[in-house]
Protein backbone atom coordinates (compact mmCIF):
# COMPACT_ATOMS: atom_id res chain seq x y z
CA UNK A 1 0.00 0.00 0.00
CA UNK A 2 1.61 3.23 -1.11
CA UNK A 3 1.18 6.45 0.80
CA UNK A 4 -1.59 8.75 -0.26
CA UNK A 5 -0.39 11.84 -2.14
CA UNK A 6 -3.60 13.59 -3.09
CA UNK A 7 -6.86 13.25 -1.23
CA UNK A 8 -10.11 14.73 -2.49
CA UNK A 9 -12.92 14.51 0.04
CA UNK A 10 -16.61 15.27 -0.51
CA UNK A 11 -15.79 18.03 -2.97
CA UNK A 12 -18.63 19.89 -4.62
CA UNK A 13 -18.43 22.81 -7.03
CA UNK A 14 -21.43 24.84 -8.09
CA UNK A 15 -21.63 27.57 -10.70
CA UNK A 16 -24.79 29.36 -9.75
CA UNK A 17 -27.41 26.67 -10.12
CA UNK A 18 -25.16 24.37 -12.13
CA UNK A 19 -23.62 21.51 -10.17
CA UNK A 20 -20.26 20.87 -11.85
CA UNK A 21 -19.03 18.48 -9.15
CA UNK A 22 -20.86 16.82 -6.32
CA UNK A 23 -19.62 14.67 -3.45
CA UNK A 24 -16.39 13.80 -5.19
CA UNK A 25 -14.07 11.48 -3.27
CA UNK A 26 -10.88 9.94 -4.56
CA UNK A 27 -7.23 9.57 -3.73
CA UNK A 28 -4.02 9.27 -5.71
CA UNK A 29 -1.14 7.29 -4.24
CA UNK A 30 2.49 8.40 -4.40
CA UNK A 31 3.99 7.45 -7.74
CA UNK A 32 0.68 6.34 -9.23
CA UNK A 33 -0.71 7.27 -12.62
CA UNK A 34 -4.42 7.85 -12.17
CA UNK A 35 -6.69 8.94 -14.99
CA UNK A 36 -9.83 10.98 -14.60
CA UNK A 37 -12.17 10.32 -17.49
CA UNK A 38 -15.71 11.18 -18.43
CA UNK A 39 -17.71 12.79 -21.20
CA UNK A 40 -17.33 16.47 -22.05
CA UNK A 41 -18.76 18.64 -19.32
CA UNK A 42 -18.42 15.89 -16.72
CA UNK A 43 -16.40 18.17 -14.45
CA UNK A 44 -12.83 16.98 -15.02
CA UNK A 45 -11.32 20.40 -15.61
CA UNK A 46 -13.34 21.77 -12.73
CA UNK A 47 -11.82 19.09 -10.51
CA UNK A 48 -8.35 20.20 -11.64
CA UNK A 49 -9.23 23.81 -10.91
CA UNK A 50 -10.33 22.92 -7.41
CA UNK A 51 -7.24 20.83 -6.68
CA UNK A 52 -4.83 23.49 -7.93
CA UNK A 53 -6.52 26.40 -6.18
CA UNK A 54 -7.91 28.15 -9.24
CA UNK A 55 -11.43 27.52 -7.96
CA UNK A 56 -12.70 27.35 -4.40
CA UNK A 57 -14.90 24.31 -3.88
CA UNK A 58 -18.44 24.90 -2.63
CA UNK A 59 -18.00 22.02 -0.20
CA UNK A 60 -15.32 19.57 0.74
CA UNK A 61 -11.59 19.48 1.20
CA UNK A 62 -8.47 18.66 -0.74
CA UNK A 63 -5.16 17.77 0.82
CA UNK A 64 -1.76 17.01 -0.64
CA UNK A 65 0.79 15.02 1.33
CA UNK A 66 -1.14 15.85 4.48
CA UNK A 67 -1.36 19.61 3.86
CA UNK A 68 -4.89 21.02 3.53
CA UNK A 69 -5.13 23.02 0.31
CA UNK A 70 -8.31 24.90 1.10
CA UNK A 71 -7.81 28.64 0.90
CA UNK A 72 -4.33 28.38 -0.59
CA UNK A 73 -3.62 30.40 -3.72
CA UNK A 74 -2.52 28.64 -6.90
CA UNK A 75 1.10 29.73 -6.53
CA UNK A 76 1.17 28.41 -2.97
CA UNK A 77 -0.13 25.06 -4.14
CA UNK A 78 2.50 25.07 -6.86
CA UNK A 79 5.07 25.63 -4.11
CA UNK A 80 3.98 22.29 -2.62
CA UNK A 81 5.01 20.62 -5.86
CA UNK A 82 1.52 20.18 -7.25
CA UNK A 83 1.74 21.44 -10.84
CA UNK A 84 -0.85 21.37 -13.60
CA UNK A 85 -1.15 21.89 -17.32
CA UNK A 86 -4.13 23.47 -19.05
CA UNK A 87 -6.69 22.00 -21.41
CA UNK A 88 -6.50 25.01 -23.69
CA UNK A 89 -2.98 25.58 -24.94
CA UNK A 90 -1.15 27.78 -22.57
CA UNK A 91 2.30 29.19 -23.25
CA UNK A 92 3.97 32.58 -22.99
CA UNK A 93 3.38 33.36 -26.65
CA UNK A 94 5.77 36.29 -27.10
CA UNK A 95 8.76 34.51 -25.61
CA UNK A 96 10.91 31.86 -27.20
CA UNK A 97 10.41 28.25 -26.18
CA UNK A 98 13.64 28.45 -24.24
CA UNK A 99 12.56 31.60 -22.41
CA UNK A 100 9.21 29.98 -21.65
CA UNK A 101 11.09 27.28 -19.80
CA UNK A 102 13.20 29.82 -17.96
CA UNK A 103 9.95 31.34 -16.64
CA UNK A 104 8.77 27.85 -15.77
CA UNK A 105 11.95 27.35 -13.75
CA UNK A 106 10.83 30.10 -11.41
CA UNK A 107 10.78 27.79 -8.40
CA UNK A 108 14.38 26.78 -8.95
CA UNK A 109 17.52 28.66 -8.11
CA UNK A 110 15.88 31.70 -6.65
CA UNK A 111 18.52 34.04 -5.39
CA UNK A 112 17.96 37.28 -3.53
CA UNK A 113 17.22 40.30 -5.64
CA UNK A 114 20.31 42.04 -4.32
CA UNK A 115 22.52 39.17 -5.45
CA UNK A 116 20.90 39.28 -8.87
CA UNK A 117 21.30 43.05 -9.18
CA UNK A 118 24.92 42.99 -8.12
CA UNK A 119 25.60 39.97 -10.32
CA UNK A 120 27.22 38.09 -7.44
CA UNK A 121 28.78 34.70 -8.19
CA UNK A 122 25.90 32.79 -6.64
CA UNK A 123 23.41 34.59 -8.88
CA UNK A 124 25.56 33.98 -11.94
CA UNK A 125 26.05 30.29 -11.30
CA UNK A 126 22.36 29.90 -10.56
CA UNK A 127 21.55 31.58 -13.89
CA UNK A 128 23.92 29.24 -15.64
CA UNK A 129 22.31 26.21 -14.03
CA UNK A 130 18.85 27.40 -15.03
CA UNK A 131 19.95 27.83 -18.63
CA UNK A 132 21.37 24.32 -18.68
CA UNK A 133 18.18 22.97 -17.19
CA UNK A 134 16.08 24.86 -19.75
CA UNK A 135 18.14 23.36 -22.58
CA UNK A 136 17.73 19.90 -21.07
CA UNK A 137 13.98 20.31 -20.90
CA UNK A 138 13.80 21.56 -24.47
CA UNK A 139 15.67 18.45 -25.52
CA UNK A 140 13.58 16.23 -23.34
CA UNK A 141 10.38 17.19 -25.12
CA UNK A 142 12.16 17.09 -28.46
CA UNK A 143 11.83 20.76 -29.40
CA UNK A 144 15.53 21.59 -29.85
CA UNK A 145 14.95 22.89 -33.35
CA UNK A 146 12.24 25.22 -32.12
CA UNK A 147 14.06 26.42 -29.01
CA UNK A 148 14.57 29.95 -30.30
CA UNK A 149 11.23 30.41 -32.00
CA UNK A 150 8.43 32.29 -30.33
CA UNK A 151 6.18 29.85 -28.52
CA UNK A 152 3.15 31.52 -30.09
CA UNK A 153 4.40 30.58 -33.56
CA UNK A 154 4.54 26.84 -32.86
CA UNK A 155 2.03 24.26 -34.03
CA UNK A 156 -0.73 23.24 -31.69
CA UNK A 157 0.91 19.94 -30.81
CA UNK A 158 4.26 21.62 -30.21
CA UNK A 159 2.64 24.20 -27.96
CA UNK A 160 1.15 21.39 -25.93
CA UNK A 161 4.64 19.96 -25.49
CA UNK A 162 5.89 23.37 -24.37
CA UNK A 163 3.05 23.41 -21.84
CA UNK A 164 4.16 20.07 -20.43
CA UNK A 165 7.81 21.10 -20.41
CA UNK A 166 6.84 24.27 -18.56
CA UNK A 167 5.06 22.21 -15.93
CA UNK A 168 8.07 19.91 -15.64
CA UNK A 169 10.32 22.93 -15.28
CA UNK A 170 8.48 23.70 -12.07
CA UNK A 171 9.78 20.36 -10.71
CA UNK A 172 6.47 18.81 -9.74
CA UNK A 173 6.16 16.01 -7.24
CA UNK A 174 2.69 15.55 -8.66
CA UNK A 175 1.68 16.51 -12.17
CA UNK A 176 -1.89 17.11 -13.36
CA UNK A 177 -2.27 16.87 -17.12
CA UNK A 178 -5.50 18.15 -18.69
CA UNK A 179 -6.03 16.45 -22.07
CA UNK A 180 -2.35 16.64 -23.00
CA UNK A 181 -2.53 14.72 -26.28
CA UNK A 182 -5.57 16.41 -27.76
CA UNK A 183 -4.39 17.99 -30.98
CA UNK A 184 -1.34 15.76 -31.24
CA UNK A 185 -0.91 13.36 -34.12
CA UNK A 186 -0.37 9.62 -33.59
CA UNK A 187 3.40 9.74 -33.45
CA UNK A 188 3.41 12.75 -31.15
CA UNK A 189 0.96 10.90 -28.90
CA UNK A 190 3.16 7.82 -28.88
CA UNK A 191 6.18 9.89 -27.87
CA UNK A 192 4.10 11.57 -25.26
CA UNK A 193 3.07 8.29 -23.64
CA UNK A 194 6.75 7.40 -23.31
CA UNK A 195 7.30 10.78 -21.76
CA UNK A 196 4.57 10.27 -19.18
CA UNK A 197 6.02 6.90 -18.19
CA UNK A 198 9.41 8.52 -17.97
CA UNK A 199 8.09 11.22 -15.70
CA UNK A 200 6.46 8.66 -13.44
CA UNK A 201 9.66 6.62 -13.31
CA UNK A 202 11.33 9.69 -11.86
CA UNK A 203 8.93 9.42 -8.96
CA UNK A 204 6.35 11.98 -10.05
CA UNK A 205 2.72 11.17 -9.25
CA UNK A 206 0.40 11.78 -12.19
CA UNK A 207 -3.27 12.63 -12.50
CA UNK A 208 -4.32 12.55 -16.13
CA UNK A 209 -7.44 13.79 -17.86
CA UNK A 210 -7.65 12.36 -21.36
CA UNK A 211 -10.16 11.37 -24.01
CA UNK A 212 -7.79 9.12 -25.92
CA UNK A 213 -8.98 5.77 -24.54
CA UNK A 214 -6.19 3.53 -25.81
CA UNK A 215 -3.72 5.87 -24.20
CA UNK A 216 -5.63 6.02 -20.93
CA UNK A 217 -6.00 2.25 -20.79
CA UNK A 218 -2.33 1.61 -21.50
CA UNK A 219 -0.81 4.19 -19.21
CA UNK A 220 -3.05 4.26 -16.11
CA UNK A 221 -2.67 2.31 -12.88
CA UNK A 222 -6.16 3.32 -11.94
CA UNK A 223 -9.06 5.14 -13.55
CA UNK A 224 -11.71 7.35 -11.99
CA UNK A 225 -14.82 7.87 -14.11
CA UNK A 226 -16.91 11.02 -13.77
CA UNK A 227 -20.35 11.67 -15.20
CA UNK A 228 -22.39 14.78 -14.51
CA UNK A 229 -20.07 15.73 -11.68
CA UNK A 230 -20.32 12.38 -9.90
CA UNK A 231 -17.88 9.50 -9.72
CA UNK A 232 -19.60 6.50 -11.25
CA UNK A 233 -16.73 4.04 -11.23
CA UNK A 234 -13.18 3.66 -10.03
CA UNK A 235 -10.63 0.91 -10.51
CA UNK A 236 -7.86 -0.55 -12.65
CA UNK A 237 -8.22 -0.29 -16.46
CA UNK A 238 -9.47 -3.85 -16.92
CA UNK A 239 -12.25 -3.34 -14.46
CA UNK A 240 -13.27 0.01 -15.96
CA UNK A 241 -13.25 -1.45 -19.44
CA UNK A 242 -15.87 -3.97 -18.40
CA UNK A 243 -17.94 -1.84 -16.04
CA UNK A 244 -21.49 -1.68 -17.43
CA UNK A 245 -22.19 1.75 -15.93
CA UNK A 246 -19.09 3.16 -17.56
CA UNK A 247 -19.86 1.57 -20.88
CA UNK A 248 -23.30 3.00 -20.81
CA UNK A 249 -22.36 6.47 -19.61
CA UNK A 250 -19.25 7.05 -21.49
CA UNK A 251 -17.31 4.56 -23.48
CA UNK A 252 -19.96 3.46 -25.91
CA UNK A 253 -19.70 0.36 -28.04
CA UNK A 254 -16.88 1.51 -30.28
CA UNK A 255 -14.53 2.28 -27.46
CA UNK A 256 -15.00 -1.02 -25.63
CA UNK A 257 -13.39 -2.80 -28.52
CA UNK A 258 -10.45 -0.42 -28.55
Amino acid at each position, binding site marked *: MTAIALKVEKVAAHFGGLVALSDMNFTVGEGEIVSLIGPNGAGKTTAFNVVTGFLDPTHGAVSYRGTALNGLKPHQIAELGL*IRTFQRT*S*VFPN*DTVYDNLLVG*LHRQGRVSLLEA*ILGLPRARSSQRRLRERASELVEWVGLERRAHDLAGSLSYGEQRLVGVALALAAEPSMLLLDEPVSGMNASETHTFVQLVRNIRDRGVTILLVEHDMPMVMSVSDRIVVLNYGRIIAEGPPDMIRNDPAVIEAYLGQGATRA
Partner: protein
Amino acid sequence: MKSGIAILTVVAFASVPLWLRDPYLMNALITTGIFIIGAMSLNLLLGFTGQLSLGHIAFFGIGAYVSALTSLGFDVGLPFGFRIVHHPWPPIAGFVLAIAIAGLCGYLVGLLSFRVRGAYFVIVTISFAEVVRLVALNWVELTQGPLALTNIPSITVGLPGLGDLTLRTKLQNYYFVLAVAVVTYLLISRLVHSHFGRAMRGLMENETLAVSVGIDVTKTLTLAAVISAGIAGAAGSLYAHYIRIIDPEVFAFINTVTMVIMVITGGKGSLAGPVVGGMIFGLLPVFLRPIMAPKAQWIAYGGVLIIILFVLPRGIVPSLALRFAKRRSRPETVAPVTFSERDAKEHA
Protein backbone atom coordinates in the same frame (compact mmCIF):
# COMPACT_ATOMS: atom_id res chain seq x y z
CA MET B 1 26.33 44.82 -29.96
CA LYS B 2 23.76 46.20 -27.58
CA SER B 3 26.29 46.88 -24.84
CA GLY B 4 28.47 48.54 -27.47
CA ILE B 5 25.69 50.99 -28.28
CA ALA B 6 25.12 51.56 -24.58
CA ILE B 7 28.77 52.41 -23.94
CA LEU B 8 28.89 54.72 -26.96
CA THR B 9 25.75 56.47 -25.73
CA VAL B 10 27.23 57.05 -22.30
CA VAL B 11 30.47 58.35 -23.81
CA ALA B 12 28.51 60.67 -26.09
CA PHE B 13 26.49 62.04 -23.20
CA ALA B 14 29.62 62.43 -21.09
CA SER B 15 31.25 64.48 -23.84
CA VAL B 16 28.38 66.95 -24.16
CA PRO B 17 29.67 69.51 -21.64
CA LEU B 18 32.98 69.58 -23.52
CA TRP B 19 31.39 71.18 -26.58
CA LEU B 20 28.10 72.56 -25.31
CA ARG B 21 28.58 75.82 -23.44
CA ASP B 22 25.02 77.13 -23.58
CA PRO B 23 23.72 77.19 -19.99
CA TYR B 24 20.12 77.22 -21.18
CA LEU B 25 20.62 73.97 -23.10
CA MET B 26 22.63 72.45 -20.25
CA ASN B 27 19.75 73.20 -17.95
CA ALA B 28 17.32 71.56 -20.36
CA LEU B 29 19.55 68.50 -20.56
CA ILE B 30 19.75 68.19 -16.78
CA THR B 31 16.00 68.43 -16.21
CA THR B 32 15.41 66.10 -19.16
CA GLY B 33 17.86 63.63 -17.62
CA ILE B 34 15.97 63.78 -14.34
CA PHE B 35 12.70 63.15 -16.12
CA ILE B 36 14.25 60.29 -18.06
CA ILE B 37 15.08 58.61 -14.75
CA GLY B 38 11.43 59.05 -13.80
CA ALA B 39 10.35 57.63 -17.16
CA MET B 40 12.65 54.62 -16.69
CA SER B 41 10.96 53.93 -13.37
CA LEU B 42 7.54 54.21 -14.99
CA ASN B 43 8.67 51.82 -17.72
CA LEU B 44 9.56 49.21 -15.11
CA LEU B 45 5.87 49.07 -14.22
CA LEU B 46 4.20 49.84 -17.53
CA GLY B 47 6.58 48.00 -19.82
CA PHE B 48 7.44 44.98 -17.72
CA THR B 49 4.32 44.34 -15.65
CA GLY B 50 1.73 46.07 -17.84
CA GLN B 51 0.45 48.17 -14.95
CA LEU B 52 -0.16 51.83 -15.82
CA SER B 53 0.65 54.23 -13.01
CA LEU B 54 -1.14 57.45 -13.93
CA GLY B 55 -0.07 59.11 -10.72
CA HIS B 56 3.57 58.33 -11.07
CA ILE B 57 4.59 61.91 -10.48
CA ALA B 58 3.39 61.44 -6.88
CA PHE B 59 6.44 59.31 -6.11
CA PHE B 60 8.68 61.82 -7.85
CA GLY B 61 7.10 64.71 -5.90
CA ILE B 62 7.25 62.83 -2.62
CA GLY B 63 10.93 62.22 -3.23
CA ALA B 64 11.42 65.92 -3.96
CA TYR B 65 9.59 67.06 -0.81
CA VAL B 66 11.15 64.44 1.47
CA SER B 67 14.61 65.31 0.27
CA ALA B 68 14.01 69.06 0.49
CA LEU B 69 12.51 68.87 3.97
CA THR B 70 15.23 66.55 5.22
CA SER B 71 17.91 68.99 4.16
CA LEU B 72 16.03 72.16 5.16
CA GLY B 73 14.68 70.95 8.49
CA PHE B 74 11.20 71.75 9.77
CA ASP B 75 9.21 72.43 12.91
CA VAL B 76 5.56 71.46 12.74
CA GLY B 77 2.77 71.21 15.26
CA LEU B 78 0.68 68.06 15.52
CA PRO B 79 -2.67 67.54 17.24
CA PHE B 80 -2.68 67.37 21.07
CA GLY B 81 0.17 69.83 21.38
CA PHE B 82 2.90 67.58 19.98
CA ARG B 83 5.59 69.10 17.81
CA ILE B 84 8.08 67.54 15.46
CA VAL B 85 11.30 69.41 15.14
CA HIS B 86 13.81 68.25 12.58
CA HIS B 87 17.17 69.89 12.17
CA PRO B 88 18.72 70.02 8.73
CA TRP B 89 20.55 66.91 7.54
CA PRO B 90 22.94 66.67 4.61
CA PRO B 91 21.09 66.52 1.26
CA ILE B 92 22.55 63.10 0.51
CA ALA B 93 20.62 61.75 3.51
CA GLY B 94 17.55 63.36 1.95
CA PHE B 95 18.31 61.52 -1.28
CA VAL B 96 18.38 58.18 0.55
CA LEU B 97 15.22 58.97 2.53
CA ALA B 98 13.48 60.10 -0.65
CA ILE B 99 14.07 56.67 -2.17
CA ALA B 100 12.94 54.88 0.99
CA ILE B 101 9.77 56.88 1.58
CA ALA B 102 8.74 56.96 -2.07
CA GLY B 103 9.33 53.19 -2.13
CA LEU B 104 7.16 52.78 0.94
CA CYS B 105 4.39 54.76 -0.76
CA GLY B 106 4.76 52.48 -3.77
CA TYR B 107 4.28 49.56 -1.43
CA LEU B 108 1.09 51.01 0.04
CA VAL B 109 -0.37 51.91 -3.34
CA GLY B 110 0.51 48.43 -4.62
CA LEU B 111 -1.03 46.79 -1.57
CA LEU B 112 -4.23 48.77 -2.04
CA SER B 113 -4.65 48.11 -5.70
CA PHE B 114 -2.95 44.91 -6.81
CA ARG B 115 -5.57 42.59 -5.40
CA VAL B 116 -7.96 43.96 -7.95
CA ARG B 117 -5.94 45.09 -10.92
CA GLY B 118 -6.05 46.89 -14.24
CA ALA B 119 -8.20 50.00 -14.16
CA TYR B 120 -8.18 49.86 -10.38
CA PHE B 121 -4.46 50.49 -10.21
CA VAL B 122 -4.79 53.39 -12.63
CA ILE B 123 -7.49 54.99 -10.49
CA VAL B 124 -5.69 54.43 -7.19
CA THR B 125 -2.50 55.98 -8.54
CA ILE B 126 -4.33 59.03 -9.94
CA SER B 127 -6.16 59.54 -6.66
CA PHE B 128 -3.00 59.05 -4.66
CA ALA B 129 -1.22 61.77 -6.65
CA GLU B 130 -4.12 64.16 -6.13
CA VAL B 131 -4.24 63.50 -2.39
CA VAL B 132 -0.53 64.08 -2.07
CA ARG B 133 -0.81 67.28 -4.08
CA LEU B 134 -3.56 68.55 -1.77
CA VAL B 135 -1.48 67.72 1.28
CA ALA B 136 1.50 69.59 -0.17
CA LEU B 137 -0.76 72.53 -0.98
CA ASN B 138 -2.55 72.73 2.37
CA TRP B 139 -0.11 71.61 5.03
CA VAL B 140 1.47 75.01 4.88
CA GLU B 141 3.38 74.70 8.13
CA LEU B 142 5.37 71.80 6.69
CA THR B 143 5.50 72.53 2.97
CA GLN B 144 4.93 76.30 2.74
CA GLY B 145 2.04 75.40 0.47
CA PRO B 146 1.92 77.47 -2.72
CA LEU B 147 4.70 79.69 -1.37
CA ALA B 148 7.11 76.83 -2.16
CA LEU B 149 10.08 75.46 -0.31
CA THR B 150 13.01 77.63 -1.25
CA ASN B 151 16.75 77.69 -0.76
CA ILE B 152 16.99 73.93 -0.91
CA PRO B 153 20.69 73.14 -0.57
CA SER B 154 22.62 71.51 -3.38
CA ILE B 155 23.74 67.92 -2.98
CA THR B 156 27.17 67.32 -1.54
CA VAL B 157 28.84 64.10 -2.57
CA GLY B 158 31.89 62.58 -0.97
CA LEU B 159 34.37 61.66 -3.68
CA PRO B 160 37.00 59.15 -2.67
CA GLY B 161 40.35 60.89 -2.42
CA LEU B 162 38.95 64.28 -3.41
CA GLY B 163 36.96 65.14 -0.33
CA ASP B 164 33.45 66.57 -0.41
CA LEU B 165 32.09 68.18 -3.52
CA THR B 166 28.99 70.37 -3.49
CA LEU B 167 27.18 70.32 -6.82
CA ARG B 168 26.78 74.01 -7.52
CA THR B 169 27.46 74.31 -11.22
CA LYS B 170 25.45 72.96 -14.13
CA LEU B 171 28.45 70.94 -15.19
CA GLN B 172 28.63 69.14 -11.85
CA ASN B 173 24.89 68.55 -11.75
CA TYR B 174 24.95 67.27 -15.30
CA TYR B 175 27.49 64.58 -14.47
CA PHE B 176 25.72 63.63 -11.27
CA VAL B 177 22.40 63.18 -13.07
CA LEU B 178 24.15 61.21 -15.80
CA ALA B 179 25.73 58.95 -13.19
CA VAL B 180 22.40 58.31 -11.46
CA ALA B 181 20.76 57.66 -14.83
CA VAL B 182 23.43 55.11 -15.78
CA VAL B 183 23.11 53.35 -12.42
CA THR B 184 19.32 53.31 -12.79
CA TYR B 185 19.59 51.86 -16.27
CA LEU B 186 21.94 49.11 -15.09
CA LEU B 187 19.75 48.39 -12.09
CA ILE B 188 16.62 48.00 -14.20
CA SER B 189 18.51 45.95 -16.78
CA ARG B 190 19.73 43.52 -14.11
CA LEU B 191 16.28 43.32 -12.57
CA VAL B 192 14.60 42.61 -15.86
CA HIS B 193 17.04 39.81 -16.65
CA SER B 194 16.81 38.21 -13.23
CA HIS B 195 14.31 35.57 -12.13
CA PHE B 196 12.25 38.48 -10.85
CA GLY B 197 12.16 40.02 -14.31
CA ARG B 198 11.06 36.73 -15.82
CA ALA B 199 8.29 36.51 -13.24
CA MET B 200 7.08 40.00 -14.23
CA ARG B 201 7.16 39.11 -17.89
CA GLY B 202 5.38 35.82 -17.33
CA LEU B 203 2.61 37.55 -15.42
CA MET B 204 2.17 40.13 -18.13
CA GLU B 205 1.97 37.54 -20.90
CA ASN B 206 -0.12 34.82 -19.32
CA GLU B 207 -1.01 35.31 -15.70
CA THR B 208 -2.84 32.00 -15.22
CA LEU B 209 0.11 30.05 -16.53
CA ALA B 210 2.61 32.11 -14.53
CA VAL B 211 0.70 31.47 -11.34
CA SER B 212 0.51 27.76 -12.10
CA VAL B 213 4.31 27.46 -12.07
CA GLY B 214 4.51 29.15 -8.70
CA ILE B 215 4.82 32.87 -9.45
CA ASP B 216 3.29 35.03 -6.73
CA VAL B 217 1.35 37.82 -8.47
CA THR B 218 0.86 40.17 -5.56
CA LYS B 219 4.42 39.86 -4.34
CA THR B 220 5.93 40.34 -7.77
CA LEU B 221 3.80 43.35 -8.67
CA THR B 222 4.21 44.97 -5.27
CA LEU B 223 7.97 44.59 -5.43
CA ALA B 224 7.98 46.13 -8.91
CA ALA B 225 5.90 49.04 -7.59
CA VAL B 226 8.27 49.57 -4.66
CA ILE B 227 11.36 49.64 -6.85
CA SER B 228 9.67 51.82 -9.46
CA ALA B 229 8.45 54.30 -6.84
CA GLY B 230 11.86 54.33 -5.16
CA ILE B 231 13.59 55.25 -8.41
CA ALA B 232 10.99 57.95 -9.10
CA GLY B 233 11.70 59.26 -5.58
CA ALA B 234 15.41 59.41 -6.38
CA ALA B 235 14.64 61.44 -9.51
CA GLY B 236 12.45 63.77 -7.45
CA SER B 237 15.26 64.30 -4.97
CA LEU B 238 17.68 65.18 -7.77
CA TYR B 239 15.10 67.63 -9.08
CA ALA B 240 14.61 69.36 -5.72
CA HIS B 241 18.32 69.83 -5.09
CA TYR B 242 19.02 70.98 -8.62
CA ILE B 243 16.12 73.43 -9.06
CA ARG B 244 16.38 74.33 -5.36
CA ILE B 245 12.78 75.42 -5.13
CA ILE B 246 9.76 73.19 -5.05
CA ASP B 247 6.02 73.79 -4.90
CA PRO B 248 2.88 71.64 -5.20
CA GLU B 249 2.82 72.21 -8.96
CA VAL B 250 5.35 69.41 -9.20
CA PHE B 251 2.42 67.02 -8.69
CA ALA B 252 0.60 68.30 -11.79
CA PHE B 253 -0.98 65.57 -13.87
CA ILE B 254 0.76 66.85 -17.00
CA ASN B 255 4.08 65.74 -15.50
CA THR B 256 2.86 62.15 -15.31
CA VAL B 257 1.55 62.44 -18.85
CA THR B 258 4.96 63.64 -20.01
CA MET B 259 6.61 60.55 -18.51
CA VAL B 260 3.99 58.27 -20.05
CA ILE B 261 4.59 59.89 -23.46
CA MET B 262 8.34 59.41 -23.08
CA VAL B 263 7.85 55.71 -22.32
CA ILE B 264 5.25 54.98 -24.99
CA THR B 265 7.02 56.77 -27.84
CA GLY B 266 10.43 55.38 -26.92
CA GLY B 267 8.96 51.93 -26.52
CA LYS B 268 7.56 50.45 -23.36
CA GLY B 269 9.20 47.28 -22.27
CA SER B 270 12.46 48.28 -23.90
CA LEU B 271 15.30 49.38 -21.66
CA ALA B 272 16.47 52.16 -23.97
CA GLY B 273 12.94 53.28 -24.87
CA PRO B 274 12.47 55.85 -22.10
CA VAL B 275 15.91 57.33 -22.86
CA VAL B 276 15.08 57.87 -26.52
CA GLY B 277 11.51 59.02 -25.91
CA GLY B 278 12.73 61.15 -23.03
CA MET B 279 15.36 62.94 -25.09
CA ILE B 280 12.82 63.76 -27.78
CA PHE B 281 10.02 64.99 -25.57
CA GLY B 282 12.31 66.52 -22.97
CA LEU B 283 14.14 68.66 -25.51
CA LEU B 284 11.33 69.28 -28.01
CA PRO B 285 9.87 72.21 -26.02
CA VAL B 286 13.32 73.77 -25.90
CA PHE B 287 13.56 73.83 -29.66
CA LEU B 288 9.93 74.81 -30.23
CA ARG B 289 9.91 77.70 -27.79
CA PRO B 290 11.98 80.17 -29.85
CA ILE B 291 10.07 79.51 -33.06
CA MET B 292 6.45 79.17 -31.96
CA ALA B 293 3.74 80.73 -29.87
CA PRO B 294 2.88 78.70 -26.75
CA LYS B 295 -0.32 77.27 -28.18
CA ALA B 296 1.35 76.27 -31.41
CA GLN B 297 4.05 74.54 -29.36
CA TRP B 298 1.47 72.23 -27.83
CA ILE B 299 0.03 71.45 -31.24
CA ALA B 300 3.48 70.65 -32.60
CA TYR B 301 4.20 68.53 -29.54
CA GLY B 302 1.01 66.56 -30.15
CA GLY B 303 1.83 66.31 -33.84
CA VAL B 304 5.25 64.77 -33.17
CA LEU B 305 3.64 62.33 -30.74
CA ILE B 306 1.04 61.23 -33.28
CA ILE B 307 3.56 60.88 -36.10
CA ILE B 308 5.87 58.71 -34.00
CA LEU B 309 3.08 56.42 -32.88
CA PHE B 310 1.68 56.26 -36.38
CA VAL B 311 4.96 55.36 -38.06
CA LEU B 312 6.42 53.27 -35.23
CA PRO B 313 3.44 51.98 -33.27
CA ARG B 314 5.44 49.79 -30.89
CA GLY B 315 7.59 52.74 -29.97
CA ILE B 316 10.83 53.87 -31.52
CA VAL B 317 13.31 51.41 -30.04
CA PRO B 318 11.34 48.15 -30.44
CA SER B 319 10.15 49.09 -33.93
CA LEU B 320 13.63 49.95 -35.14
CA ALA B 321 15.12 46.86 -33.50
CA LEU B 322 12.56 44.75 -35.31
CA ARG B 323 13.27 46.36 -38.68
CA PHE B 324 16.98 45.97 -38.15
CA ALA B 325 16.52 42.31 -37.30
CA LYS B 326 14.32 41.84 -40.36
CA ARG B 327 16.90 43.29 -42.65
CA ARG B 328 19.65 41.09 -41.25
CA SER B 329 17.79 37.81 -41.29
CA ARG B 330 15.60 36.33 -43.97
CA PRO B 331 12.49 38.46 -44.37
CA GLU B 332 10.07 35.81 -43.17
CA THR B 333 11.90 34.89 -40.00
CA VAL B 334 11.97 37.90 -37.78
CA ALA B 335 14.43 37.38 -35.00
CA PRO B 336 12.56 38.12 -31.83
CA VAL B 337 14.26 40.48 -29.44
CA THR B 338 14.18 38.47 -26.26
CA PHE B 339 16.18 38.45 -23.14
CA SER B 340 17.80 35.06 -23.52
CA GLU B 341 19.56 36.16 -26.67
CA ARG B 342 21.02 39.09 -24.92
CA ASP B 343 22.04 36.85 -22.05
CA ALA B 344 23.56 34.36 -24.42
CA LYS B 345 25.69 37.09 -25.94
CA GLU B 346 26.66 38.45 -22.60
CA HIS B 347 27.89 35.10 -21.46
CA ALA B 348 29.40 34.01 -24.73
